[in-house]
């Protein structure tokens, strides 16, 4: 069936901010869908609240709305744009849930919008556990035993039959929120209640535990002619019981015979047909009993998912792109495989390598949270590695995680681990279990014992044992011969041993290992990911490294050179990506890397992308001219350098990952373009930086650098408490703290020895009650363009990534703005910045202090770019490649027709026991943007978008610290005038009453009806304003905040945040909200200029 001609305009909903369980894979899928549908001539209306996405680039769709993702705003957009259809299956669970809600509220029907891909009934059938169970049973599929419950009493009845351990899953949530494993009666009530609460329809499923079974996932695609293909089978190394997002997974499936695999495939085909997904991709999860082979269906996602992004990258089969084409009428055989160009999409990829995906965790950011994995996802990112063997891909993956492991290595000496701890770390799934397996094997535990404790399949453990055995052989060989034979070295490389691992074994430097093996001709070769195991010629240059005999990258390059007439060879620019997402380094940096590739491709360069993150747009083979899916280590990058010999290398867009490699790459001869490595060093090195600031006569808070504990203490005293302490060369405020005395300083130094790794410790005077300002600028070495000045809502001291900010600034004076601009200009020129520059200032009264300078892409680049309508990263990339600022048409940022607010999104609900207080260490996973004509409305939109919408009426609980008591009275008065009922604890209430504000007094603790926790539970509180007092938050206050988070009540912890919130509430009550596309807004802003 060809393309449908009865629909013209399609609404696509994105997945909103990056949160745990829903990350940039949906930017990848959404962007692919937009591209595919535009190619077919459809008009796309795109909605997403996340500015750091490629999908919200004004070039991706003709109508781009950066608006909160809720029904209220979507209806406004539908009224304005009147789309013919909505494609709900590409925006993650958020997009799907919203489409369901729009249907249920009758909005789709009212405006005659058709649901493509999956109809409402289909989504319900797949997502509603009861209907799903019936569907499975009707086609004879086996399932774990289970029953539903809607109240705690019902749940107690059900569990009597199912027994312990059992699993509680709540219906209609994302990433397993509200789900848990319950081992005993005592825990059951709390967990069951939490599950009921977090379900959109107060429904939980209590299920037979299949913990420890083997887990598999199949990615399935169906077209409107009922053709179905399996794109990929993924096997989890971590057995059932660990969320698949938190599991190390492998593709293809390794331990299924063909008969069992085909059985799984047949069941998947039957299931997608029974559920009725008309077109597009779905993900189906299975569990297999390791001893009996009993196969049960776990769940199905009737949409593109994180696993489908992984499957796309693992096979080269672009699921989202094809899903979009299928949704508008094409069938699989009508779509061509881009990679082979001659075969259709109606096939199943054959792969000739092994893929390992390893999640990246962030427990170090939340020390109070337990590093234990379960069925609720906790990882914040992932890396994928491709190798010819599992051993190679595992080791590549482990070093690609960028957590200071150089492979399946020996970071901890196994002899220092107590047996009890070892056993516990094997039995209880956790972030470092893979390394404990190594330690266990080293300590003499047998493969079978490790299998028994971890319940992982013996196949995987035996492979790991092979690595250890071979490592021991190498150690022995080296001890005997003082060198390793060529054969041994080659085998080591074939099995993924990194140069640093070999350096440890051979007791020499990494570079000596590199030189040695290159002398022996043991060099990496590159193979192509081609969907067909070389059966057809591949045209898409998507490479991975391995140690084999034939190098296809070199062959392709030779062919290219031959094809191009002499002198017309395009110059090559290599862009180093950011690796796995983590808190502090996420989608914003991938966005910048993609922009560099787009801009340079457009300017006639040949672009080469290097990255290891399967979720991203940068690792779409369509983004750059050549894609290398590789870990971002010195060794792996140099291997690519050797083959590609680029004319330029960009390190300033991928966050700290490539920057950390910059100096070594430069020393090894890499032609790094843009700001020099020395300038980057000047900005990062405290002493050099302080000297530069002195020279430029720009004030800095008192500061010092220290390398020892004693020096640090002395320096802190000299600078004067409170001080901000952190190790240098870290991103996202990792291990950064404000300390008020020597005792807390010492305990902090103790904590960070692991992170600082020999880098110096930085000590800054902490300026209390100062406003923080972020600046993003572009410099070509001669001219500086100050693109955005952002005023933070929260005071300095809270990490800029966790702080809301507004652009343009709404309270700063002209004089201060002028001073900030001038400082920015002078610093950029002094550092000879070529490319992007981000500066953080603190403003206290009329005085401007410089906090830090980052001569690289910053987290706010996408936000600023979208607010001012100038793609800064693209511009910077072109400047790095030799263009001048004078060649660009740049808007005057003082004349923006709109206020933009950036708000962050925090993962606290994922980490029980963690307090929600913000500080200098970044904790947010993502961000949203609110745009409106006034600050109040923009702020209110940003809060809605961050899923903490401000109330319009109801009760407000106020409890603030001593410092904030003065300012809170006025705010409370305004809230009261707006019709809110105020509640406060004793101290705050007294202040408010003195100022003549009516307030109800409540208790912090106790069991009475007047207790604040009771009020929260009774839904009488709609907003909490609670600023923590002193250095340590009080226990009761933590409980109050935790209760608010649990019930999704907005909880504001800074007085500045409270002030902004009141602006927002006023705006939503008095002004209401409008929606406007970016394109219309840019036209309006630039209108007068052009006239």
């Amino acid at each position: 069936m060809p393309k449908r001609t009865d629909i013209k305009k399609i609404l696509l909903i994105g997945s909103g901010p990056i949160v745990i369980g829903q990350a940039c894979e949906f930017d990848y899928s959404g962007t692919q869908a937009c591209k595919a549908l535009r190619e077919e001539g459809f008009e796309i209306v795109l909605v997403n609240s996340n500015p750091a996405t490629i999908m919200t680039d004004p070039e991706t769709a003709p109508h781009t709305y950066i608006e909160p993702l809720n029904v209220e705003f979507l209806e406004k957009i539908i009224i304005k744009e009147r789309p013919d259809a909505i494609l709900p299956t590409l925006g993650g669970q958020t997009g799907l849930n919203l489409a369901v809600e729009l249907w249920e509220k009758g909005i789709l029907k009212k405006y005659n919008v058709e649901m493509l891909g999956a109809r409402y009934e289909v989504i319900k059938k797949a997502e509603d556990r009861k209907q799903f169970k019936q569907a499975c049973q009707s086609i004879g599929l086996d399932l774990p035993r289970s029953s539903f419950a809607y109240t705690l009493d019902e749940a107690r009845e059900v569990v009597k039959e199912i027994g312990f351990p059992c699993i509680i899953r709540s219906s209609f949530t994302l990433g397993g929120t509200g789900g848990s494993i319950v081992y005993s009666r005592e825990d059951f009530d709390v967990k069951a209640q939490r599950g009921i609460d977090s379900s959109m329809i107060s429904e939980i499923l209590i299920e037979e535990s299949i913990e420890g079974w083997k887990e598999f996932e199949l990615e399935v695609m169906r077209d409107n002619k009922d053709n179905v293909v399996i794109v990929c089978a993924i096997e989890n190394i971590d057995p059932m019981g660990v969320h698949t997002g938190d599991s190390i997974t492998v593709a293809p499936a390794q331990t299924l015979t063909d008969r069992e695999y085909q059985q799984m495939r047949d069941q998947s085909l039957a299931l997608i047909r029974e559920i009725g997904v008309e077109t597009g991709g779905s993900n189906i999860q299975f569990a297999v009993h390791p001893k009996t082979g009993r196969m049960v269906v776990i769940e199905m996602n009737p949409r593109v998912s994180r696993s489908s992004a992984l499957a796309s990258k693992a096979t080269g089969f672009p699921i989202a792109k094809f899903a979009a084409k299928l949704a508008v009428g094409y069938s699989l055989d009508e779509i061509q495989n881009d990679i082979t160009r001659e075969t259709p999409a109606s096939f199943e990829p054959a792969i000739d390598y092994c893929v390992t995906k390893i999640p990246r965790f962030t427990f170090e950011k939340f020390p109070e949270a337990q590093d234990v994995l379960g069925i609720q996802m906790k990882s914040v990112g992932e890396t994928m590695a491709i190798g010819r063997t599992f051993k190679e891909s595992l080791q590549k993956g482990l070093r690609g995680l960028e957590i200071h492991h150089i492979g399946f290595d020996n970071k901890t000496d196994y002899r220092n681990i107590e047996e009890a701890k070892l056993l516990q770390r094997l039995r209880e799934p956790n972030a470092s279990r893979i390394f404990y397996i190594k330690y266990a094997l080293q300590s003499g535990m047998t493969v079978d014992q490790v299998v028994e404790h971890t319940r992982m399949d013996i196949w995987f453990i035996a492979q790991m044992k092979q690595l250890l055995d071979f490592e021991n052989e190498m150690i022995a060989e080296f001890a005997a011969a003082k060198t390793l034979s060529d054969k041994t070295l080659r085998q080591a490389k074939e099995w993924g041993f990194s140069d640093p691992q070999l350096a440890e074994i051979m007791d020499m430097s990494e570079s000596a290992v590199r030189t040695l093996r290159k002398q022996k001709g043991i060099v990496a070769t590159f193979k192509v990911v081609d969907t067909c195991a070389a059966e057809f010629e591949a045209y898409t240059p998507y490479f991975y490294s391995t140690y084999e005999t034939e190098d296809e990258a070199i062959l392709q390059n030779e062919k290219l050179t031959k094809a191009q007439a002499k002198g017309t060879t395009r110059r090559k620019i290599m862009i180093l990506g950011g690796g796995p997402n983590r808190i502090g380094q996420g989608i914003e940096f991938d966005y910048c890397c993609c922009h560099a590739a787009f801009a340079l491709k457009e300017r006639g360069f040949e672009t080469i992308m290097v990255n290891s993150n399967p979720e991203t747009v940068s690792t779409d083979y369509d983004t750059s001219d050549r894609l290398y899916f590789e870990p971002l280590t010195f060794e792996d990058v140099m291997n690519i350098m050797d083959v590609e010999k680029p004319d330029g290398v960009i390190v300033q867009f991928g966050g700290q990952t490539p920057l950390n490699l910059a100096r070594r790459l430069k020393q090894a001869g890499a032609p790094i373009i843009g700001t020099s490595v020395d300038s980057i060093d000047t900005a990062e090195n405290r002493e050099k930086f302080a000297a530069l600031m002195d020279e430029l006569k720009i004030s800095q808070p008192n500061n010092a650098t220290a390398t020892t504990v004693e020096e640090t203490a002395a320096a802190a005293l000299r600078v004067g408490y409170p001080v901000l302490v952190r190790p240098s060369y870290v991103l996202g405020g990792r291990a950064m703290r404000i300390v008020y005395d020597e005792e807390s300083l010492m305990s902090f130094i103790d904590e960070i020895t692991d992170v600082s790794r020999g880098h110096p410790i930085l000590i800054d005077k902490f300026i209390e009650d100062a406003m923080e300002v972020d600046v993003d600028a572009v410099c070509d070495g001669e001219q500086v363009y100050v693109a955005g000045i952002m005023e933070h809502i929260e005071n300095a001291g809270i990490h800029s990534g966790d702080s809301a900010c507004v652009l343009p600034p709404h309270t700063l004076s002209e004089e201060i703005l002028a001073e900030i601009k001038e400082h920015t200009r002078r610093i950029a020129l002094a550092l000879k910045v070529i490319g992007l520059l981000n500066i953080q200032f603190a403003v206290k009264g009329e005085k401007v202090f410089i906090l830090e300078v980052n001569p690289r892409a910053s987290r706010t680049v996408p936000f600023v770019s979208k607010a001012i309508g100038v793609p800064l990263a693209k511009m910077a990339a072109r400047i790095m490649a030799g263009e001048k600022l004078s060649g660009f048409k740049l808007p005057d940022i003082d004349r923006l027709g709109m206020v933009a607010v950036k708000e962050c999104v925090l993962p606290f609900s994922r980490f029980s026991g963690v307090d929600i207080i913000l500080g200098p260490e970044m904790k947010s996973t993502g961000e949203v943007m609110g745009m409106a004509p006034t600050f109040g409305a923009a702020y209110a939109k940003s809060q809605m978008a961050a899923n903490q919408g401000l109330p319009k009426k109801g009760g407000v609980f106020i409890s603030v610290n001593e410092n904030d008591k003065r300012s809170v009275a006025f705010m409370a008065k305004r809230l009261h005038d707006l019709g809110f009922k105020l509640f406060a604890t004793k101290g705050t209430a007294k202040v408010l009453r003195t100022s003549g504000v009516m307030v109800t007094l409540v208790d912090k603790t106790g069991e009475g009806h007047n207790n604040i926790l009771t009020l929260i539970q009774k839904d009488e509180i709609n907003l909490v304003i609670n600023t923590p007092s002193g250095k340590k938050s009080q226990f009761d206050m933590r409980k109050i905040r935790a209760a608010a988070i649990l019930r999704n009540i907005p909880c504001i912890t800074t007085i500045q945040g409270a002030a902004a919130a009141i602006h927002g509430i006023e705006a939503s009550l008095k002004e209401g909200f409008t929606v406007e596309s970016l394109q219309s807004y840019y036209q309006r802003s630039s209108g007068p200029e052009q006239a």
Partner: protein
Amino acid sequence: MKEAVLYLEDGKCFYGRSLNIHGESAGEVVFNTALSGYQEVLTDPSYAGQIVVMTYPLIGNYGINDEDVESSRVHVKGFVVKEFCRTYSNFRANKGLIQYLDENKVIGIEGVDTRALTRHLRVAGAMKGLISTDDFDPRSLKVKLAKVPSMEGADWVKEVATKKPYVWKAEGQKKYRVTAIDCGIKLNILREMARLGIETSVVPPTTSAADILAADPDGIFLANGPGDPAAVTNVIATVRELIGKKPIFGICLGNQMIGLALGGRTYKLKFGHHGCNHPVKDLETGRISITSQNHGFCVDINSLNKAEVEAIHINLNDKTVEGLRHKKYPLFSVQYHPEAAPGPNDAKYLFGRFIEMMEKFTLKKG
């Protein structure tokens, strides 16, 4: 473990290491792109005379079990992989692949850049090759390989087909009786037919048409098998006599036999189709099946009388003919493997069609 070489007819060498079987073995070198199903591949009689290269690099992961065999022994002349698995894992497995190869005295080599080898075969075509663990001299390897007959013109059927007739019973009630001319039949064809109530009499390829018709079966099945179909002249002649007399269903070599018996010709594909992911379109229904394939030869549809024979299936990758139907007689055949094993079960419906054809024929006959 010994160093080993795979010497190809065009002089190209690929190096690896042998397992426990050493020496020399020659055959036509073909690659198979299936991700799973090595046990079925090894025991598929259609691979007789061939050295099989698996493109998936990790082979032996789930061991060997008693059930997933397609015949009683291993037929490949050699098995070339990137890495053999030492510790297998599967609840049905009872031995490892290496032990299995040893028991069957089949030479297996690993450590080969199988992707480079596959790319070479794709460009240069399937060709003869010789695995040796003793001789690394290209000149003498060349001489040895020259003595090995080429796949074209080679009748391998007689090597693998049954010498004595036997009966494969129906599961449950016997509903139909089918005679299968064995050219190297895969057991899963018999299992599939048995599941549908068919009792199959498997007869040697030398059985005459008269003998087959004397048993008055409901239908005749033409099995898969190895080698060049054109070389199996006696079976072609038998098939020619059977056409129109009984409903006939053919798979793989059976399809080629039918093409040849109907007066057409077959030709050799550059590197054949060996894998589990080939999209085939049923031209009558428009439906696409993902199919299991294993053939080096193909029927030339243009060599057949269009008034009598039509193509009913095509391969969507290279548009080659994947199935034939006679417009007048009860006869159809497919080039691929609806019985799967290894591979997807998408095309199992074809066995149902065979039954429909037999029922219609019986009805007509009254």
